[in-house]
């Protein structure tokens, strides 16, 4: 073992864990990513690939700013991933729409965006576009669309290729990734450090440990004295056969993968750890897609699936260090794709406690204690 640069285990090999690992590696640390079991809930393999800011943090300025920083960092991050992994994640950040079929809902969202704008000043600009203007700009938009908001910073990536690019990049940067290595328990060791009990019975000793295992981190985090609790929120998604034509828009619920398929999603349900898809929700997604863009009506859906979002009580990320057991960190969030450029850079400074560390006090878990008390 290298005593001056001990290996840091990162528990969780999804988008968040791999991003955090990459950041630590680029900061010169040695890292071992421990990925869970094949049938674990894997948001990183079921998500929509949005790089999205619209509406985020409208009611919480630190999250609005953190998200805005991430959006600005994405182009350089995508280039860095190509350099490290040779994989182009198909970042397209040319702006995104939120379509509305209900005027009252659109007004409500416009008010949220106005508040987000106040947090961000000239770093954010959104537009509200009427249904008629949309139809004039983009032939094919359905008559049932009353309008849309548009933000030019929003975009998307190919989410599966992004996951692969991260995995390859971590390897290229000198990190170790072990698949099928669920961590059963993390026990503070006497005299400092941690003993990671692997599901296969092995024990690994570490000075620090970073929990990035999404829904799988719940029990481990509780053992280390973290109070933050994340809960699953099910989203369902459809994908169509691949199309030769390009959709003229990207929205938060309808996106075209760079390979041609059209993905529809954005539903929310509390269903525990059940990630199955349901017929009525699938039908609703298809109806929504055809309402927004009627030319999709005869396009075949080829797959449907459910996936579980990782939601903190207020929906914002949690960056917490254990006060009971120094050296243990909890990193968990819903928007692991959007926030990845920050997780893969300045979050390493926060974990290392360097002077360059961003101020993440607003994302500490003590905010939940306060809200419970209030």
């Amino acid at each position, binding site marked *: 073992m290298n005593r001056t640069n001990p290996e840091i285990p990162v528990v969780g090999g999804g988008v968040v864990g791999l991003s955090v690992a990459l950041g630590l590696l680029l900061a010169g640390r040695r890292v071992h990513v421990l990925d869970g079991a094949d049938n674990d809930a894997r948001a990183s393999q079921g998500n929509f690939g949005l790089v999205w800011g619209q509406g985020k943090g409208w009611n919480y300025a630190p999250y609005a700013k953190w998200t805005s920083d991430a959006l600005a960092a994405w182009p350089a991050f995508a280039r860095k991933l190509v350099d490290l992994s040779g994989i182009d994640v198909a970042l397209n950040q040319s702006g995104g729409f939120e379509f509305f079929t209900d005027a009252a809902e659109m007004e409500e969202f416009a008010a949220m965006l106005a508040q987000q704008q106040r947090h961000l000043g000239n770093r954010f600009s959104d537009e509200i576009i009427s249904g008629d203007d949309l139809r004039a700009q983009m*032939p*094919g938009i359905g008559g049932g669309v009353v309008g849309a908001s548009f933000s030019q910073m929003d975009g998307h990536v190919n989410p599966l290729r992004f996951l692969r690019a991260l995995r390859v990049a971590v390897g290229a940067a000198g990190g170790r990734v072990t698949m099928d290595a669920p961590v059963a328990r993390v026990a503070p060791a006497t005299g400092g450090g941690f003993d990671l009990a692997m599901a296969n019975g092995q024990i690994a000793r570490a000075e620090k440990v970073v929990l990035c295992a999404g829904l799988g981190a719940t029990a481990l985090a509780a053992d280390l004295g973290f109070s933050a609790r994340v809960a699953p929120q099910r989203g369902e998604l459809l994908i169509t*056969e*691949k*199309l*030769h*034509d390009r959709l003229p828009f990207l929205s938060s619920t309808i996106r075209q993968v760079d390979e*041609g398929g059209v993905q529809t999603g954005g539903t929310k349900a509390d269903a525990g750890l059940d990630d199955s898809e349901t017929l009525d929700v699938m039908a609703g997604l298809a109806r929504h897609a055809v309402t927004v863009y*009627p*030319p*999709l009506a*005869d*396009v*075949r859906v080829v797959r449907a699936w459910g996936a579980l979002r990782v939601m903190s009580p207020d929906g914002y990320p949690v960056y917490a260090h254990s006060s009971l057991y120094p050296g243990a960190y909890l990193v968990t969030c819903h928007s692991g794709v959007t926030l990845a450029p920050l997780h893969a850079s300045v979050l390493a400074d926060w974990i290392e406690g360097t002077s360059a560390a961003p101020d993440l006090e607003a994302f500490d878990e003590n905010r939940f204690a306060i809200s419970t008390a209030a």
Partner: protein
Amino acid sequence: MKIVSRFQPPPKTGATAEFEYEGASITAPQGISLAAALLAHSGAYTRQTAGGDARAAFCMMGVCFECLVEVDGLPNTQACMTEVRQGMVVRRQIGLRRLNGCNDS
């Protein structure tokens, strides 16, 4: 065409259906699949992948999607799951399908 019908012999009525394929007229026994009719006709490729490679029907049971053709204007139709019909107009599926109403490219 249902999966179960793939395992039943076609009716031996001697009746035939005539349909158009890439401008040619093909006559096939009624009750057989379009994929079978196209294989019997020439065995030549019936679609091109997005990358331009030639493909023809392979699994004949609705799984591999190699038999995609355009039937009466409907793209990406599985020929092995479609029964031949009198008067149907069939074309090769060339590359990815187009979006109807947006064929400006």
